[in-house]
């Protein structure tokens, strides 16, 4: 397939996933923050600061009243067009890419993207804040999940599909790592591990999986290592690995490029290391290392499949 089309699919996948995950982070955190709102022990503000970090909000607001932190985080993550991690930016990027490769998408998939775009463009921070952001976030989550479903059901599962999957699961692994990285597990072991599970849609599966009294650390291990949880790091890395091997047509266990090699190493580590080994230096260290690896993986995928070819070679200029 065309390199340009593959690249657009990759970034579409990444940004659809980003919009969905940011919506989920905000929704879960906003709901949990309501329990802390009347307390004066700094936990409300602490929670919002963790949300900021998870959502890739680097600059910390200067005026530090707790309300201010919450409001700034919402403003930044929902409708800030200057923030590439905001929902409105992610949806715009998805739509711009979809427009450029519209001939490759099914009518139904294009329509899901366009309807989401038209919805998000028609909303404002004021309305989202006035009535609480839950309705907006629910809409975004449902539309992005519809995207996944319609893509699965209507798009041919060839190379195009594989590039879309690669982008989606790379972003998912990346945001899961960032949630772990931003979470204040030392100070709030129980609250935080519960919030992490909810942000990964893993709260009920985790309860089901861990029969006896689980420790917060078990929850972290579940988010990283669960074989069947679709938002675990291990699951995401397996999906990336499978998609990359289908694109290059290389047998599993071997590699055709640097990206496949790296993802194979990461998989082997999660598949065969024990939780004790993985968490030996703390969750933070694991998350930070993973973030670095995933950034490297992204640029290796780009140089393997979307090289910046000159527009003409062998021309007579």
């Amino acid at each position, binding site marked *: *397939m*065309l390199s340009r089309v593959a690249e657009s699919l990759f970034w579409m996948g990444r940004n659809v996933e980003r919009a969905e995950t940011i919506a989920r982070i905000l929704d879960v955190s906003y709901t949990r923050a309501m329990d802390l709102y009347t307390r004066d022990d700094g936990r409300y503000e602490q929670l919002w600061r963790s949300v900021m970090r998870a959502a890739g909000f680097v600059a910390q607001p200067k005026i530090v009243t707790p309300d201010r932190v919450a409001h700034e985080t919402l403003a930044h993550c929902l409708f800030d067009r200057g923030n590439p991690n905001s929902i409105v930016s992610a949806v715009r990027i998805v739509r711009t890419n979809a427009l450029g490769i519209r*001939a490759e998408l099914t009518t139904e998939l294009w*329509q899901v993207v366009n309807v989401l775009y038209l919805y998000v463009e028609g909303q404002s921070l004021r309305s989202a804040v006035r009535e609480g952001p839950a309705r907006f976030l629910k809409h975004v989550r449902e539309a992005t999940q519809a995207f996944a479903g319609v893509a699965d059901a209507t798009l041919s599962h060839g190379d195009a599909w594989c590039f879309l999957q690669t982008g989606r699961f790379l972003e998912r692994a990346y945001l899961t790592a960032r949630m772990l990285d931003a979470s204040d597990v030392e100070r709030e072991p129980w609250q935080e591990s519960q919030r992490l599970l909810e942000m990964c849609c893993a709260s009920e599966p985790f309860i089901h999986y861990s029969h006896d009294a689980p420790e917060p650390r078990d929850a972290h291990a579940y988010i990283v290592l669960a074989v069947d949880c679709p938002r675990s790091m291990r699951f995401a890395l397996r999906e990336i690995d499978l998609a990359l091997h289908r694109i290059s047509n290389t047998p599993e266990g071997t590699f055709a490029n640097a990206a496949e090699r790296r993802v194979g190493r990461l998989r082997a580590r999660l598949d065969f290391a024990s939780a004790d080994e993985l968490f030996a230096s703390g969750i933070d260290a694991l998350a930070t290392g993973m973030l670095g690896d995933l950034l490297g993986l992204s640029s290796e995928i780009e140089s393997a499949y979307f090289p910046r070819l000159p527009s003409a070679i062998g021309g007579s200029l």
Partner: protein
Amino acid sequence: MPARGAESEVMPVRSVLGDHAPDAVTSHYDELFQPGGNPRDHYATLVATLSGIARDEVLARVQSINTMLLQRGVTFTVYAEAAGTERVFPFDIIPRILTKSEWDRIERGIAQRVRALNAFIHDVYHEERILHERRIPRELVYSSRSFCREMIGVDVPAGVYVHVSGIDLIRDTHGQFLVLEDNCRTPSGISYVLENRTVLKFGFPDLFRGHGIHPVDDYPRRLLRVLRHCAPQAGERPNVVVLTPGIHNSAYFEHTLLARRMGVELVEGCDLIVVDDVVYVKTTSGLERVDVIYRRIDDDYLDPLYFRPESTLGVTGLMNAYRAGNVTLANAIGSGVADDKALYRHVPEMIRFYLGEEPLLENVPTYDCTDETERRHVIANLDKLVVKNTNASGGFGMLMGPFASHDERAAFAALIEASPRDFIAQPTIELSSAPTLIDGQLTSRRVDLRPFALLGAEVDVPHAALTRVALRDGSLVVNSSQGGGSKDTWILQN
């Protein structure tokens, strides 16, 4: 006793047709109503069905069609407005119906015309027989901005220049179809034909009852057949691509639709590369050879080496690959010479000269401003004439004499005197009208008809024609850039 629904009973409803009283005496032909006010025979079923649907119901369904068009992204870009304004192409739900005998005549006339236009283009780049025999003035051809000297002596694959054309027809006061304009470069509009049918079936399935209509959705298959037929080498399955200027082009939606329905890649200039006079497309598994390019980019932007050097839409080296015979461009470079408006009036002569036939579809009378007598007549009668710039399209660069102010006419008179080759003039033709839903009221609006023709081994005229409608009251200009919309066009099988 089994539960039964309500007895079916014809209840009088207030339909959109209710308060529409067509003028008893009109100066023009109406597509639906006879002069007495009764519907024409082939519209009787439609009128009966439509009058059984309550007005509010019709308006609600129109609303849902408009939502569907927006969500499907059936939009065009308005260049004059803020950057990248996307607008839904206005759609009128009342279809335009053509009888089998009307269409048969159109089909034969279009096929004849396209054969002659293609022969003409080949001739002016080769033997120039029609010029040697002085049937068409030589200087008219050479002065055409679309005449491309680089194409002289070049043999194009399968001898085809105008793979795709759109011939604009209008109906005069007697109901006779006339050719208003030929479009031999990159005529657009077929996507609206396909989408109009889809959304009308969605919103008004009941209207289709009792009609046998030709389907329109085989157009992409027929287009692909023509493109493959014209590949440079026979044999293996040729690699066909659609070349688009990109997402900001007003017809981008159409480019994506055609590529998707033909099952071929939609590429931008940056996706293509020319190596040793062969065109390749850049893919994730390396370079792949391209055989046929259905390009929706004007000649001027195709290759910065030959044409506009600042163009970033095209492909460096494409012209060399084309001249070397390694790639097919559809339409061929230089085809625009055939739809230069100054040559329009000579098309009947082309038909007689190349085919030895009399034209089946007549032209609109046209004045040539380079002829001094005719130019004087034009300038003296500007208040009755339509003046067109021979190099413009889309309804731009036009003077509608009867509607223009004194100053506008004076300005055009000066322009014509300064460069007579750039203008032609025609009497103001009363286009036919068709009932159209405007603000919930049925109102008479002017329409034209654009059938599309495909030329491969022979001319193929698919049953897919675009009816454009001038939505502004009294307007005779149907172009989408000038407030035009469209209707679904039904061609009856019997």
